[in-house]
């Protein structure tokens, strides 16, 4: 079979699975959460989450076809089910266009929604971690990172930093790295803005782990910046000598906060 035909076939199969789930056809597992019931197919769910698989195949109470999830919002669980059927999930506040303009300094309305979006990604991340769904883990991390990078309000981080560090666990390390990086970025761009300093100081006092991560980040990678060779989309550690990019070894990198940062040349 041609590859494209095969892809079409897979696409159709997934769509049919999804519509069967919407119609409640052939569903053999009810996921219950906060009084809501989501009917799903074991074959879809269990193949992707070893935890739910163990629950359904073992001789526990869940083997009767009802799986109750506590300590979690219905929306998040629904998001997880969406992912398991479609490979993606949506955040449920959609006032913001997904692709934000890149110009710095533009004031974007509706930042409250950006924040709730971030919270959703964090929750999704922690749910994926709990149910050992690796794909969802990766997806939510990517989404989180993108949203954080796009968030331009210099003070907004104070809220999501707290949220991320509430996760309190190893696997959220990646999220923490993203958070620390983003805080450093903001501090570098507006070093003298009192509100930023205040916010950072507050976080350091409140969350000792964040303070530790931040300090370690500065110690290990004192200067962060963009390398023209490696691409401007990511932050890299820069060697102090000759402004070399530590990743590719080329000189001519621009340290964060330089007067020509962000200009093209």
């Amino acid at each position, binding site marked *: 079979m041609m590859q494209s035909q095969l892809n079409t076939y897979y696409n159709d199969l997934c769509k049919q699975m999804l519509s069967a789930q919407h119609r409640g056809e052939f569903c053999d597992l009810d996921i219950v959460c906060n009084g809501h019931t989501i009917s799903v197919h074991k074959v879809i769910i269990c193949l992707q989450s070893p935890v739910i698989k163990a629950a359904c195949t*073992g001789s526990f*109470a869940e083997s009767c076809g009802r799986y109750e999830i506590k300590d979690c919002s219905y929306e998040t669980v629904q998001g997880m089910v969406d992912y398991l059927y479609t490979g993606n999930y949506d955040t449920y506040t959609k006032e913001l266009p997904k692709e934000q303009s890149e110009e710095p300094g533009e004031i974007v309305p509706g930042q409250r929604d950006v924040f709730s979006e971030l919270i959703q990604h964090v929750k999704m991340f922690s749910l994926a971690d709990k149910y050992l769904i690796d794909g969802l883990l990766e997806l939510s991390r990517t989404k989180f990172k993108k949203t954080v990078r796009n968030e331009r309000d210099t003070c907004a981080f104070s809220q999501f930093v707290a949220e991320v560090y509430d996760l309190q666990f190893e696997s959220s390390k990646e999220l923490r790295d993203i958070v620390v990086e983003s805080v450093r970025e903001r501090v570098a761009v507006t070093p003298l803005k009192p509100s930023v300093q205040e916010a950072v100081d507050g976080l350091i006092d409140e969350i000792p782990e964040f303070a530790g991560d931040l300090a370690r980040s500065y110690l290990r990678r004192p200067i962060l910046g963009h390398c023209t060779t490696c691409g401007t989309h990511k932050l890299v550690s820069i060697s102090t000598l000759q402004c070399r990019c530590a990743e590719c070894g080329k000189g001519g990198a621009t340290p964060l906060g330089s007067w020509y940062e962000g200009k093209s040349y």
Partner: protein
Amino acid sequence: MGSSESKQLPSHAQAQSPEPLHSKSRACALAANHSSQPNGPGGEGADFDACWNMIQEALRDIHNKSCGRLSFEELYRAAYKIVLKKKGEVLYDKVKEFEEQWFAMHVIPKIEVLVTKSLINIGIDNSSAASVNERRQTGEKFLKGLRDTWEDHNMSMNMTADILMYLDRGYTQQEPRRVPIFATTIALFRDHILRSCLNANSDSLIVDILISVMLDQIDMERRGDVIDRNLIRSCSRMLSCLYETEDESESSKLYLTIFEPRFLSNSETFYSRECDRLLRESDASTWLRHTETRLLEEEDRCGTTIERETLPKVSDVLDKKLILGHLDDFLAMEGSGVRWMIDNDKIDDLSILYRLISRVDDKKTALREILQKRVVELGLEIENVLKNTDFSTGQGEGEDGGDGDKAKTLNPAAQQTAAAIRWVDDVLRLKDKFDYMLEACFQEDLVLQTALTKSFADFINLFNRSSEYVSLFIDDSLKRGIRGKTEAEVDAILEKAIVLIRYLLDKDLFQTYYQRHLARRLLHGKSESHDVEKQIISRMKQEMGQQFTSKFEGMFRDLVTSSELTSTYRDHIRKLDPEGHTIDLNVNVLTTNYWPQEVMGRSTQLGETPRMGCTYPPEVKRLQASFEQFYLTNRNGRKLTWIGTTGSADIKCVFPAIEGKSGPLARERRYEMNVPTYGMVVLLLFNDQKDGESLSFEEIQAKTNMSTSDLTRALMAIAVAPKSRVLAKDPPTKNIKPTDRFSFNASFQSKTIRIKAPIINAVSKVEDKDERRTTEEKNNQTRAHIVDAAIVRIMKARKELNHSQLVSEVLSQLVGRFKPEVSLIKRRIEDLIVREYLERPDEDGAPSMYRYVA
């Protein structure tokens, strides 16, 4: 969850932290921080206790198989929370401690009661006094107890591991010195049961007893008892699920490290004994069947009783012990060995034998050698039977020879033909037998096919008349054998002939015979079908090459051009003489080299003077001169020689009415006769004789100038042969003597108008001893020339060569024509040195060198 598969852990997403070492140490530090944090007295500790209590309860329920009401999610979340709180290590240790306690209190005692004295005895000595039945029951009881305990344990540990899945993910995987919780808990069974004695009176480990009992049961089954296969399988599965260490590498499964070696050595002993017993008590056929049954049994056993991965190894044991153990002894067994199987067409036995041998030996040496030996033996037997058979009272076979009355006794030629056909038939039958065997028993095995072909060639070439007999067989087939046969049948006969030719080593000798026989068939119109003749020649061409058949094809070409020539000559004559009073001439112009020397009128016997031909009557001479003139007009420089011995003439004879006789004799009789050319020459003499006058043999010879032998044969045809006795002989004996007198047989009568006088040939169709010696001598002379030519060709190219290289090159050049003896090559080399084609360079150290003399 009755499955006893080992637990699969979800693979952990890699490289979550770029510096794992560092982050780990931080985790520890933070864990310490948390515990020292005054986060509400007993806040987190109480949390942990609550969760742990819940889990502990659940573990107990799982062991008691009353977990149906437990919520997996609750338990999982409890463990998840503990791990999130960095208490994974505590949880891990607590679970381990709990399981160890449970094991000591509830599991070990169950096993201890099973380890009885009689059980230990099985382990020590399985041929103990206890009866088989007792032993089986004791063993089964033990195995069942062990299996049940294991299955409970395995199931509980699987469920526990399910609940604690997040523990492995969040804690165990970060700790290099920790193995998954399942590996730790499942190993309790190995450490506390399999590797302990559990009985104060014995020092055998449980695992040893277990394996002894399992092997004992398997041996019982091999001896024909019925055992509980599933029980054994559960135990072998258990050993497959446990590992030597907690690393759980595939090669350290207890099944592989402990059970399998003992199983294999046990099987070795068992089958080695069994093979000895079979050799003592049974025959080869029983052995074959028994071995095959055993192979199937072991295959079945690996599928149902133990693990499939053991199959190749236990098969190997069977191959070595049961098949190879006494292979040669069984094959050579009198009255049931391979020889007996071949002679009695034991297709099944041979098939099994082939399958078994193929398992152990790609070359099938043992079988091959016996087969080859037997083929040669049977082949030589054919020859012996032939020697001891009297063909003189043949089965009506053989063609009408020259003797006057067609008696029951056959002439020597027909006898030889019968013998040849018999020989060919027997050889072909033998070949069919082995061909069938090859197909039905040996799966068309290439090695055996090659070996058989070689053996056939061996015995066929050991028989010194094979070339002649093969040619005679083809001759007979083409003269009579293909009459009324379908194309497919004819094709089968051709195929047989080709098969035989393929075996012949002395192809040049065959060529000589075939040429002679073909010439006779063509010149005397004896061939049944020219199409078939051409077919067989084209097949020979495919097999043996252009050179081999060039003469035969030349013979056919001669005949084609001759018939054209005859008709153009006839047209030519008709123009000159429209009345058509001349004699009709049908000429075959034969190219000297294509046709056998005997036909071409050269000496048949060495040393005999060439035949003189004869004095033809004037009218024939005129005809000859006319044709020669016509022929040579367009073809300069050719020499035509008339060969009277191979031709024939149609003549019209008138026999007068005889007075005083009744019936046909009272009337004048006109017959058309076909007589040999020389017969015609003799008959024409009597046109000039008056009635009642006779001519003596000498007088005829004087007038015709024929050689004695030619004349004798001509007179045989017209004065002795019963249906064509147009000359009366005095005395009327069957032999022709120089003193005999001949006269016109006026009272000759025949039922048919057309009469064919038999052709009596100078060259008999089948050779007698002397003739064969002659043929061989001639052949050897030809060979000497061919060897000469080959040597000179090689030396011309190589300039210098040592003796052995030269010999081997000559042999390789001549393969396909014949296989010269090395002594012949040596003689030819010496001869060539004498004739100064070659020389020996007188150099030291190279005594066997030859150099080409330009």
